[in-house]
């Protein structure tokens, strides 16, 4: 996670010209997969990710609790989505992402309203440019809502990290490769509760506080983009 590439110039700007607390542009569109119950397409910087949701009867397994819905997110990368062609099929990284995204969504969906139901969330990363797990989760949340699944809130996520030793928002690919830390986080915006959080790298307590307050701020904007994408389609449940 270290390198000799200078990530922040003398004017304090990043390689792509952004300020330390500036996000890349985000666009979200719903209803993009006709066969699915819900879907969303997100462009976040150069990331392009499509998510489709199917709500179906759960196939019972002896170990499973059937009195609430099961959420299964599957994060997958297209062969052409990354620098070096990716072979098809899951790997350890994609399996971990599938797990944390499933858990974050489960924290937002009112599972007990959907007994014996399985919510399949298929995530396809078409173009990857740092921050795909958070972009995927942010879009998944919209796609789940688009499918009419009752939710306590829309999960919204963001990433911070360290570049040239400085805390910055929404890491670029270079910052991800050559920076000193990566901090993806997702919350339920109505309560501010954290449903996804990972760190890897080198982060002091102070840096953690800086990063989270930057992200909390940014997530307000992202949250608005989500809601605009859903427009009238989504009405928050009076839950919890």
């Amino acid at each position, binding site marked *: 996670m270290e390198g000799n590439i200078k990530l922040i110039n003398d004017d304090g700007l990043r390689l792509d010209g952004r300020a330390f607390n500036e996000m890349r542009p985000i666009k979200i569109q719903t209803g993009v*997969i*006709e066969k699915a119950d819900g879907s969303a397409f997100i462009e976040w910087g150069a990331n*392009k990710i499509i998510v489709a949701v*199917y709500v*179906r009867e759960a196939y019972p397994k002896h170990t499973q609790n059937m009195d609430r819905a099961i959420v299964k997110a599957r994060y*997958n990368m*297209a*062969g052409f989505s990354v620098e070096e062609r990716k072979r098809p*099929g899951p790997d350890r990284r994609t399996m971990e992402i599938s797990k944390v995204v499933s858990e974050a969504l489960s924290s937002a969906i009112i599972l007990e309203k959907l007994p014996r139901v399985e919510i399949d969330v298929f995530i396809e990363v078409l173009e990857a440019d740092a921050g795909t797990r958070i972009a995927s989760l942010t879009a998944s949340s919209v796609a789940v809502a688009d499918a009419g699944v009752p939710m306590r809130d829309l999960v919204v996520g963001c990433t911070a990290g360290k570049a040239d030793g400085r805390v910055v928002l929404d890491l670029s690919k270079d910052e991800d490769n050559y920076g000193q830390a990566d901090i993806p986080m997702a919350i339920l915006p109505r309560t501010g509760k954290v449903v996804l959080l990972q760190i890897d790298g080198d982060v002091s307590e102070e840096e953690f506080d800086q990063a989270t307050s930057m992200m909390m701020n940014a997530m307000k904007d992202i949250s608005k983009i989500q809601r605009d994408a859903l427009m009238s389609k989504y009405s928050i449940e009076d839950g919890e």
Partner: protein
Amino acid sequence: MPMDSNAVISEIKKGFILDSIKKGKRIDGRSLTDFREIKITENFIPKACGSAMVELGKTKVVAGIKIEEGTPFPDSPESGVMALNIELLPMAFPTFESGPPSEQAIEYSRVVDRGIRESNVIDTSKLVIEPGEKVWMVYIDIDVLNYDGNIIDACTLAAVSALKNAIVPASKYGGEDFKLPVNALPVSVTMAKIGDELVCDPDLEEEQVSNGRITVTMAEDNHIHAMQKGDVGEFSLDEIRKAIKTSSDIGSKIREKYLR
């Protein structure tokens, strides 16, 4: 909820489709040889070496190309490598599953691959860096995002469109980038046999009521470079000859309109 893409649809709907086609018209208003609306977005994935999204009615696929250095196969040391793979993503249809490719996905991949390979779209002999040692590997990956019938034609269009705009990233390896030379623009035309008629570019419902599928892929030379009879069903030789003519006619039009 789960519905099989091969399942028979309701008898009423089926009768309606058949009756309509008997009268020479399809329920969405198309003639028997009409394709649905085609929309091609080239360079949809800028970070790939070449790419295209193709929408064929509601069928939606994305082709992306990666070109990397690799070693040639021992039995063809003076030839680059082309590999094409179609993923029927589980998001594309309720009954599609995660995991290794189904027989269906593999058949589609191989038919599309043959149409491109046998038309010599790519001249692999020009993709040699160091004979026997280093060649360019051209990976064509195609994601099927939404399945509403006729994957083969959508994928052939997407692959050819992506190849047309592909750049060989030689600068990554110390050389100079160059456009991937493309020698032919094959078009596949797939027809379903419904009742006694052949209908072009069947949508999902038409596939479900059909008795057999036939694909004919031709290039500018109007020669057959790939043909595939698929699914359970049978064709007379006359029907096959008609399919060849239709492919020649309709394929030329598609080539002129969408690939030039």
